[in-house]
Structures are given as structure tokens and as C-alpha cells.
């Protein structure tokens, strides 16, 4: 597979490599950072941005707290994610409104990024909020650009102000006058796609800005953009002092690392996402979702959080200690089982692990089983719970009767307990990683 193996799997490997070992060394963190660096680069985050990011994260990761933590690998992943989310800004799809209507919104960006399409989306969105928007057709270069805006306008029921292939600066200014006259409170200005290095066309945008005093200047960027995103965003921001960014075509399978690059070089908020070709395919920007997307980790982080919520640090410590001392009893077994149940539907849990598909497990059956286990264990004497090896045939019969289950079910519980203990012993002697990996490999093969 090489080049095409998915990031999710790669990071899944890093993740399991670190977590399965338990304690981390500084060398481990270095290795993890290398992998994360590659992951970010393959996600199209800009080279320089990645460099900064990784050095920041690794500083945090070598901190005492991580090295001493019970789940250092998970901590590292969490630090990476938290840092990403923070860099990505907040969910902020609020558009500023001018105190002197009409509010002018200027769209700009490279060729084919999705400006004209987004005019339609934004218009529809504002219409729903009770605004009265109008479009201004200021792309006088692209063949049939005006027709396109008109078709879009018709779809969302918003009028288009156009003056053919005139001077875009004048057309924009005239559109604003027209809006004032006709009582439109918002003018969305569609402009031609242009290269950031085209001085003449960049000057044209500056003139439109000067003449129409836009409240919002939105840079539209294709989410599939690669390393060049920093150059584009930086130049547009330097020249126009943009107010926000629109990230389009997120309905594709791109990792969208450009989002991080753009945020880092402009510091401007990403306000909306385009998620399709229809006027309704507009969404607010969610930094946390974007972070997981860039990391290609799917919901690994949700899984980590769920696990952390389900088992308290205290409980973890206790379990770990008992495991180490080989004192893992039936009571501990029940605690562990319950915490797994607390993480939610087992199918969802499995689906969140990279490289694993949704398991076909009946989660109701699992709940039932946990309840049965509970009553079986409750029917045991404290001595039996702490020394399960004394539970022989007559005791099994008594326990089954007392808990309203069958001897077979009691046997099943004891067997599963034995297996779990076996696994824990293996974990203590360092054999578990291979075991786990074998299971993962098998799962993959059967996909």
C-alpha cells in the first residue's frame, strides 16, 4: 500500500505502539512526533506550520505529567488534538452587520474555489435569517459568469445586479447604490477568481473594497488546497485585510490541512464550510471536527474521552495495582465490565478504533449479560469473590439458584474471568501488545 495507506491507520499504529507499551520515554515521544509530522504533511498542512506545531506539541508532551501518566500515549494524542483545536479557533459563523445598510459582503479567492456557488449558499442562509440580500455580478472575465450567478440567484430567489462586462469597481459601487434605493439590506459581491500574484486584479479588489466599504471580506478556499494555501491566504490577507475564510468542498475526502495553514498565517476565523453543490450545503465551522479530520483519526479522540470518563483515574490506579499484584478478583472483573458498558454501545466503540469496522454485536445482549454477571457475582460470598478458585460444582449450583441463572451461565462467567486474568498476566509480562496486534490484524483481514 505504501503511499496510499490511510492516515487513520498510520496514526492508529503510532497510537497502539505507544499505548501498548504503557510508560513513555523521551525517545518514544520523538518517534511519535515524527509520525505526527508526516501525518500532518500528508494532510497538506504547510511545511513551516507543521514545524512550529510539532515543536510546540513536543514541548508539552515531554512534560512530567505525560511521562508519569497512566496512559501516556493517549495523553500525547490528546495534546496534539487539543492544540489543533485551539489553533483552529472557535465556532464563529457570525457575520458582522453594518450600522449603515446595506451591509456589503465581498467574496474573493483563486479560480474555481467556489465563490459563485457560495454566494448562493450565503444568500439563502441570510434570507432565512430574515435579511433581504442582493447579488452583485462583478466577475466580468469568466465566460458566462454572470449567467451562472443569475441561475444561482433564481434558485434561491435573490435578484442579481449586473451591468454586463463593465468595470467591476463601478458595478460594485452601483450595486450598493441600487440596494439603498430598493431597500436591500445586504449586497453579496461575486468577483472573478484571480491569482494572488496578479497585481492588476489584486488592485481591482482593493478598489472595490475602497469604493464599497465591505463589512465582511471572505476569502474562499478549496479544502483540497496543498502547500500553496499559505501563500494565497497570506497575500489576500495582506492586500485586503480579510475578515474571514470560507472552506469549500469539504464533502470530499480531503484531510483539509489547508484549514490549519490558513489559520496560522492569517489568524482570521474560518466562518463557514461548503459541503456540496446545492445552495443548502452550507455549515458552520467546527474546530474539533476539523482537527480530527486533519489528524485522520476519526473518532479515536471521542473514544479516549469516553474511556477517560468511564473509568476514573482512581479506579484505573486501583485496577492497575491489583493487576500488577495478580490480585484481580471477580469484583474487579465486574467493575471493568461495567466501565466498558458505560462507554456506550459496543458497536460504536469498536467503530471508533482505527482499522476496525463496526462489529456486529447485539449491544442489548451485552447489557443483559452484564446484568446477569452482576447478579451472579452478588450471589457469591465475599470469600468466593476474592478466591474464585474455590468455586466448585456445589457452590456453582448454589450461586446459579441464588441469582436466578443456570450453572452454564455461572461457568461462562468464570471462564471469561479466567481469560481476562490470563490476558492481564500477559500484559504484565509484556506479551499483550503482540496479542492485541494479532487481533487487529485478523480483524483487518476479514473486512
Amino acid at each position, binding site marked *: 500500500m505504501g503511499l496510499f495507506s490511510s492516515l487513520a491507520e498510520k496514526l492508529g499504529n503510532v497510537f497502539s505502539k505507544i499505548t501498548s507499551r504503557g510508560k513513555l520515554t523521551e525517545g518514544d515521544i520523538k518517534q511519535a512526533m515524527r509520525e505526527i*509530522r508526516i501525518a500532518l504533511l500528508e494532510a497538506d498542512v504547510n511545511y513551516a506550520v507543521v514545524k512550529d506545531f510539532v515543536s510546540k506539541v513536543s514541548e508539552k508532551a515531554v512534560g512530567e505529567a505525560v511521562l508519569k501518566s497512566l496512559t501516556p500515549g493517549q495523553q500525547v494524542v490528546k495534546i496534539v488534538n487539543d492544540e489543533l483545536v485551539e489553533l483552529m479557533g472557535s465556532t464563529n459563523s457570525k457575520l458582522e452587520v453594518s450600522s449603515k445598510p446595506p451591509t456589503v459582503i465581498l467574496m474573493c479567492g*483563486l479560480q474555481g474555489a467556489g465563490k459563485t456557488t457560495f454566494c448562493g449558499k450565503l444568500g439563502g442562509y441570510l434570507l432565512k435569517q430574515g435579511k433581504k440580500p442582493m447579488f452583485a455580478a462583478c466577475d466580468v472575465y469568466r465566460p458566462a459568469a454572470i449567467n*451562472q450567478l443569475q441561475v444561482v440567484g433564481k*434558485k434561491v430567489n435573490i435578484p442579481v445586479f449586473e451591468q454586463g462586462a463593465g468595470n467591476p469597481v463601478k458595478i460594485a459601487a452601483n450595486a450598493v447604490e441600487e440596494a439603498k434605493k430598493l431597500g436591500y439590506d445586504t449586497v453579496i459581491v461575486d468577483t472573478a477568481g484571480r491569482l494572488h500574484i496578479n497585481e492588476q486584479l489584486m488592485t481591482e479588489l482593493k478598489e472595490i473594497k475602497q469604493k464599497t466599504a465591505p463589512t465582511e471580506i471572505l476569502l474562499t478556499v478549496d479544502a483540497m488546497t496543498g502547500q*500553496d494555501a499559505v*501563500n494565497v491566504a497570506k497575500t489576500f490577507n495582506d492586500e485586503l485585510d480579510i475578515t474571514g475564510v470560507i472552506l469549500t468542498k469539504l464533502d470530499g475526502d*480531503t484531510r483539509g490541512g489547508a484549514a490549519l495553514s490558513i489559520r496560522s498565517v492569517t489568524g482570521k476565523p474560518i466562518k463557514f464550510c461548503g459541503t456540496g453543490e446545492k445552495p443548502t450545503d452550507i455549515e458552520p465551522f467546527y474546530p474539533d471536527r476539523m482537527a480530527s479530520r486533519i489528524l485522520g483519526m476519526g473518532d479515536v479522540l471521542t473514544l479516549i474521552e469516553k474511556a477517560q470518563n468511564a473509568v476514573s483515574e482512581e479506579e484505573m490506579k486501583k485496577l492497575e495495582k491489583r493487576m500488577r499484584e495478580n490480585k484481580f478478583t471477580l469484583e474487579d472483573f465486574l467493575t471493568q465490565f461495567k466501565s466498558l458498558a458505560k462507554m456506550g454501545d459496543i458497536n460504536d466503540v469498536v467503530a471508533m478504533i482505527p482499522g476496525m469496522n463496526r462489529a456486529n454485536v447485539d449491544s442489548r445482549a451485552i447489557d443483559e449479560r452484564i446484568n446477569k454477571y452482576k447478579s451472579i457475582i452478588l450471589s457469591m460470598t465475599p470469600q468466593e469473590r476474592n478466591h474464585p478458585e474455590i468455586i466448585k460444582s456445589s457452590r456453582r449450583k448454589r450461586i446459579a439458584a441464588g441469582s436466578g441463572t443456570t450453572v452454564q451461565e455461572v461457568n461462562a462467567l468464570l471462564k471469561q474471568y479466567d481469560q481476562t486474568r490470563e490476558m492481564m498476566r500477559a500484559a504484565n509480562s509484556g506479551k499483550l501488545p503482540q496479542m492485541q496486534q494479532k487481533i487487529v490484524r485478523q480483524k483487518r483481514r476479514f473486512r
Partner: protein
Amino acid sequence: MGFFSKIKEGLKKTKEAIAYKLNKLFTGGVLTDDFYDELEEILITSDIGAETTDTVMDRLKGEIDKNHVRDTATVRTLLKKILVELLEENEQPTYEYPLVIMLSGVNGVGKTTAIGKLAKKFKKAGKSVTIAAADTFRAAAADQLTVWAERANVRIIKHTEGADPAAVVFDAAQSVKSKNGDVLLVDTAGRLHNKKNLMEELKKISRVVERELPDAMVMNYIVLDATTGQNAISQVEIFNEAIDIDGIVLTKLDGTAKGGVVLAIAGELGVPVVYVGVGEGIDDLEDFNAEEFVNGIMDEQ
């Protein structure tokens, strides 16, 4: 203006220009770690991708050791050679007529514009050219293509918005047959490769072409935007699964993006880059030349 001079012009305009960095790098100096780091940066910022960069760097270091290279200038020549070889592994197509060229790709990459440019190119070569407007979906797509057909002075077959694109292609094929045309250019709607139904639609269009023009040479080209990063790999991969891609048209090379991802694609998928787009004008389409492409990435000003 030629492709190379356009690229050079683009490079001149940006201080971030890779050429500038390389120039600085290659004028003297020794093979230090910093030197390799900077080389790596140059490759990665051209969108070649971290993994392909590793492969290229490994190969480069191997050559350096083998040839006992000590100076940076020779390293530069070696690196260029490696990159050019990667691109030239895949053979360029030679056309036979009647010829069908179908352009497909994700949204907004420059398919329609490239159809206009190709129409002009074949028309100039004395061929009789027909365009099929098989994007019946996007707002005013046919209007846009009509303008290009007029500019190139070629025939266009179109239906109304929302019509079946396969039906447009069917009509166009009949027209080409009856008029003994040389070249049929098929413009398709932009579609993201992860949309199953749209990829099925593309397969259907492709089947109609094959069925209606069985004696024609059919070339399926995917259009890639040079600004695109690593996602271009899965674009080519999945379009190729659907309709067997014969080549790449790499557009928007007149910007500051380098389109380095085609190096990863060339190495992994064996699909050649056939044309490059270097502007919005009708003549801004050039035959791909690996050496010029690599020069565009690496040469000093």
C-alpha cells in the same frame, strides 16, 4: 509566451519562490544536514508529499554516495535527473483519428476551460472538432462552454440543463459519425470522487462513448488543479478505477503552486501528465515537458 517563461514569471513575483531558495542553496556550500533539510523543504512545499519526498531523498543520497558527490551543484543535477526520470517513466500518448478526449475531474479544476483550449489546438492543426456539453448539472455550464466553442470556432452539441449527460454524448457521437469528424471533446460536470452515484454516471457516459464510436481512439484525461495537495492522489486513483485514466491535464500552473503531487502520482499510478494549463486564455495550454516542469520547480531565476 511559453510555459517555461510563464513559470519563471510566476516565480519572479513571489519571494517565497522555490527557485530562490534553491539558488541560495546550490551556490556553493557543503552537504550538511541543513542542506538536506532545505532540499526536503523544497520538495515538500511543492506538494510532492512527505512519503514521496522520503523516497526521492533516499534515492538521491544513494546516488550521492555511489558517485562520491561532494558539491551541491552536482547534487542539484542529480535531483533534477531523479525527478525527470520519475515523470518520464510514463509514455506520452500518440493520437490516431477519429479521436475522443473526455475530460473529467473534481469541481472547479478547469475542465471546461481546457476543453476550449484543446478545441483551439486541434482546430489549428486542421482537424474538424466537435464539443459535447455533457455537464448538464452546473449552473450555466453549457453557456460557459458555448462561449469557448465560439472562441475556438468549433461545433457544440448541448441539451438543456438537467438533461441526461449520456444522451448529450450519444447525440454528439452520431453527429461526429455522420459528419466524419476527427475530434470529439467531451466536457463533464465536476464531481468529487467519493460520490458513488456521480462516478456511476461518469461510467455510463464513458460506456456510451465506447459503444457509439467503437473505431475511435478514446482518451480519458483527468484534470488536476496544480493548487491541490495530496488529495489529488485519491482523485486519480478513484477516477482511474471508474474509467481507466489515460493521462493528466495539470491546470493553473501559472500560480505559485508547483503541482508536485503529480510526481507521487507518476511514481505510484503510472499515469502521464499530458498537458499543462498556464492561464485563462485560449492559448494557455502546453504539451507537458518533464524537464521544463522540473526546471520550473528548481531552476534559479
